[in-house]
């Protein structure tokens, strides 16, 4: 009943918003069964962190708008986008875990398990390859794939469109954002992409250090230098060799590498996309933002802790034919066959990785599940 009642009140509430009565509703206006309509409308004022820079491109046909982002947020958390109404994007991409799910393989539809671990989400604005194997080259392309995947949400695009079309909530919202209440798959993808583009994480201790707002500890600073440095023992330059693939201020570059997990990988990674043996066992190097929150690690979640991850790179590299030259070559001793970090250096690198946790990001209401508040409200009323 609440749903219907609220829906009919939509226009009244909008008027209230424009009259500046938002404060009466605690700063947000509740419309329909969600709390998404904010007083702000129109083109979204994107705040780009200074150190993150302008190396991104927003598609001309999908400019950011406040309404588009809010619609995308709803769709991101919309369980109707799965065959049995149990799974949304937010099921595996949970905000409290930096939009990962704490599992080696994720729970898909009807008890199935995904074939790879959920990749945490943040700063996707600057990405142009998606999935562990880099198979999608835009967020718009990416967004529709899990919806159709038989192990994930398992809907055809026609079914997804039709389910949303048959709600009271969505057609007017699509009309508001895209000018038509005839929902299309392309517009579903566009809205979700808008939401994902504004999920910017830039308030970790590392970011604050970059902005001069705080000092890192001595150990964290040593760890940062090691993290970013490719070792060159001839010049007595010690390095953890992380930054070649997880570099830049976003702790994320765009490479796809074999990082020495297996001699004969069961999951052939990018080779499954390109068909090239030279791509065997190669996976996208993910951003290490919020890495302390996103265990277990690697595409198959084989490592439970950051200590295990660092031990892998230090001691257990498997030298297959496609192992990245940046790993083969790197050692802290002249002629060394492995990375050869000291225990103190390994600890310092982990201390630095823990500065990448952004607690603001994982509690930011703009990225939270809009449907949860309603449940709380229902309980109250």
């Amino acid at each position: 009943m609440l749903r219907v009642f609220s829906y009919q009140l939509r226009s009244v509430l909008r008027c209230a918003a424009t009259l500046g009565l938002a404060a009466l509703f605690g700063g947000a206006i509740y419309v329909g069964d969600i709390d998404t309509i904010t007083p702000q409308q129109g083109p979204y004022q994107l705040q780009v962190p200074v150190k993150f820079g302008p190396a991104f491109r927003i598609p001309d046909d999908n400019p950011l708008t406040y309404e588009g982002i809010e619609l995308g947020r709803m769709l991101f958390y919309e369980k109707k986008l799965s065959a049995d109404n149990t799974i949304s994007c937010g099921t595996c991409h949970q905000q409290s875990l930096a939009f990962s799910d704490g599992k080696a393989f994720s729970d898909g539809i009807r008890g199935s398990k995904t074939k790879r671990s959920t990749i945490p989400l943040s700063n996707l604005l600057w990405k142009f390859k998606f999935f562990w194997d880099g198979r999608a080259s835009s967020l718009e392309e990416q967004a529709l794939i899990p919806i159709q995947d038989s192990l994930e949400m398992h809907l055809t695009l026609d079914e997804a469109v039709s389910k949303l079309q048959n709600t009271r909530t969505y057609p007017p919202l699509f009309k508001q954002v895209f000018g038509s209440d005839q929902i299309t798959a392309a517009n579903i993808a566009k809205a979700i992409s808008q939401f994902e583009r504004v999920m910017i994480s830039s308030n970790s201790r590392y970011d604050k250090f970059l902005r001069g707002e705080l000092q890192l500890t001595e150990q964290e600073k040593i760890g940062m230098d090691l993290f970013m440095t490719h070792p060159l023992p001839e010049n007595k330059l010690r390095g953890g060799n992380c930054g070649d693939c997880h570099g830049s201020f976003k702790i994320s570059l765009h490479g796809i590498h074999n990082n020495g997990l297996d001699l004969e990988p069961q999951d052939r990674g990018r080779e499954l996309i390109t068909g090239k043996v030279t791509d065997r066992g190669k996976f996208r190097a993910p951003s290490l933002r919020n890495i302390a929150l996103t265990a277990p690690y690697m595409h198959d979640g084989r490592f439970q802790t950051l200590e295990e991850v660092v031990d892998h790179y230090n001691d257990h590299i498997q030298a297959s034919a496609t192992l990245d030259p940046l790993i083969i070559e790197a050692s802290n001793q002249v002629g060394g066959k492995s990375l050869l970090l000291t225990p103190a250096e390994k600890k310092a690198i982990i201390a630095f990785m823990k500065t990448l946790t952004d607690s603001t990001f994982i509690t930011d209401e703009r990225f939270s599940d809009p449907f949860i508040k309603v449940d709380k409200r229902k309980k109250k009323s």
Partner: protein
Amino acid sequence: MTISTSILFLLVFRTLFINDPQPAPARDIELVIDHAFGPEHLTLEKGYTVGNQVVTFTRLKYYVSNVTLRHADGTTWRDTEKYHLVEVDEETAAVATIKLKDVPLKKLAELKFSIGVDSVDNHSGDQEGVLNPDYGMFWMWETGYVFFKVEGYRASGEHDRGAFVYHVGRDNCFRTARLEIPGDVTAQASTLRVAADVSGIFKGLVGQQLRESKANASISVMGGPKALEAADNFVKIFSIAR
């Protein structure tokens, strides 16, 4: 001198001496760099023979900066876009195109460009455009840029496999190529083709080092005398294509 004669004088002076020149006729030139290994078109992940070694490239990435053209009449034109990042990958098929905009329509005599980031910009921290650290060419720990990255595998046999990683930067490795433009390139030419034979990277000390490398040894060239020679070698791989 009255005010009116002063004005008249100024007007005449202006007409005679600082007459706004008509913009010289100009055109855009595409500077096309074709990467090759010896006579073969360069392909990543493909083996090429150097001495007794087979080398395979996995990455080739470098900054072309301060492109300058000298015309046959002695005047010069300088690219206002100071930095271009060249990367050989699957999509570009080893051909890089740099657009030179509004070059005066004159006969060309020399093409000059540098490999890397000049000392002013190399000491100004991280910057915008292709100098953004996102492009993976910024040494975060010493706030300077990598001028060129060459990475790949080397092997002299089944039991001697290794990798090479040349990340070369620092001011003393900044090098400039000067290429004479042949007389048969017309004043109207809208394309300048440059050949980059990457086998040259391994010449001299670096090639020597490849041949002398011990079993399974890997090679890194980031600083020191080897980096200087790598920089010397790198800038020499370019020539005007005929």
